[in-house]
């Protein structure tokens, strides 16, 4: 029996840069990101709208007081996924 089409699909998660920033829509909570301002964050919740993820600051050289706080992060501010 032929495999289902679904099993031959590429994984939904994509790690590509778009012209405006990192493609974040399919990233899961727990994913770590480096932002263009040098901060590192971890995704808590993903709106799945392609624009925003709710994240917690892990490192923030410019504003260390914000480490540990949560904020919405725009995909255009994401530089790369930290593996």
């Amino acid at each position, binding site marked *: 029996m032929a495999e289902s089409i679904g099993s031959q699909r590429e994984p939904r998660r994509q790690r590509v840069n778009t012209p405006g920033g990192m493609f974040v829509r399919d990233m899961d909570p727990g994913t770590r990101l480096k932002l263009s*301002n040098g901060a590192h964050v971890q995704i808590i*919740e*993903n*709106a*799945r*709208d392609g*624009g*925003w993820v*709710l994240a917690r600051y892990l490192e923030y050289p410019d504003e260390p007081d914000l480490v540990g706080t949560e904020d*919405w992060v*725009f995909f*255009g*501010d994401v530089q790369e996924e930290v593996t």
Partner: protein
Amino acid sequence: MVTYIRSRGDRSIRSLVDMEKGIVNREVYVNEDIYAQELEQIFRRAWLFVGHESQVPNPGDFVLTRMGEEEVILTRDHKKKLHVFLNTCRHRGMKVCRYDEGNAIVFTCPFHAWTFDTDGRLVGVPHLKDAYFGELDKSEWGLVEVGQMCNYFGSIWATWDKKAPSFEDYLGPFAPSVRWAFQASDGEDNGVELLKPAQRWRLPTNWKFPAFSFAGDSAHAAMTHLSVNAAAIGPQGDGADGGSRHPMKAPFPAKNGYISTSELGHCGQLAIFEQPGVAPYLDTWFSDPGVDDYFRAAQEKRRQRVGDQFVHMQGASPGPFGGGQFHIWPNATMSNFRILMWHPHGVGMTESWRLYQVDKNAPQNVKDAIRHYDMRYCGPAGVTESDDMENWNYAHPASLGLTAQQYPYNFQLGLGHNHADDRVPGVVIGDKGPSEENQRARINRWVAFMEAGSWDELYPVARNNGTH
């Protein structure tokens, strides 16, 4: 305050309506300037039905609905609190939600990506630090929330006007009717859920044709619904006007008729009972095995719950054709099985919505029977409302011509033949045959809203005792 029609010189709104004679100028239904003033004077101030809490049971759930011409989002935030927001981004006006219903963490505008929490707060703005330089105060740019919202036994109502009276005061003597419409068949408050999805379609007619006719125009039924009655389409399958097994004909002493309050604009075809308790159940669902068993048992529970109380201003029995329907000013008609919304969509267009209640604890076969009945009887494809649309959709264009506008509509049926009833203060009842009193009540309220500059002129309770 006298309101003048902008395009008609010094002719006042009041000059178009003579309720002592039962005459209404056709311009009330076709004039563009009058329509524009209705949006401002009526739909920006009145309490409007927006939905039911069963449509948004979980945090993040939302459903789009309307208030007048404007689209709003009914949503439950992450703390489970209900909100009603205008569906427009504060930045450049784009809709922040384009799905009819769903679940969201945030509402993100697809234009420039401003994003809003489900509690309405603006929580994300691209370039907030590097291009707005931290100078944009997000707290001032949240979603626009209604002036007041009320969860009334599960039904959600809202007004843009923060100065409007409380919803229960707004309802006056019709508060028990709204409560009844959202009770389960056994009388449990907030005991229903709405079938999904809502039916929505547009009628090429002015919103007042259906909104001022429903629950007050039984004189049309014999001719308009002749074929439906011949086909015996009711659940009882038994002829005209509900048939001999219509619950309104239950052997339970009551004054059934046209009940209205012209001061508030609400009206209905309801009952003032001559004895306490509830009517015995009449078997109705002959082609749906088990459904009558369910409703009969529910009616018995309701009888025990009601005890020796009088349940005025309600229908007689559970389920579809429960024996009554009513209209809450300005554009919500409802009973204990359906909600009919008449949203204005231009002077000659009405967006009609149908929502159907069903006991949330009913077995699936009962829910299915109700749904099938709703589909064949009501809505855009239902046999009775198709009849009604024929009338409204042709009456409007036939009233547009300058010659046609010289001749007023006649609202004289039953004029002067109503009486008060001490058991329900504040209403009059017409129980001597067909009457247009319920339509006259809405037109009276229409004049009041169109003329009033404030709620002090609109709300008689406030004028009478100054406590609201």
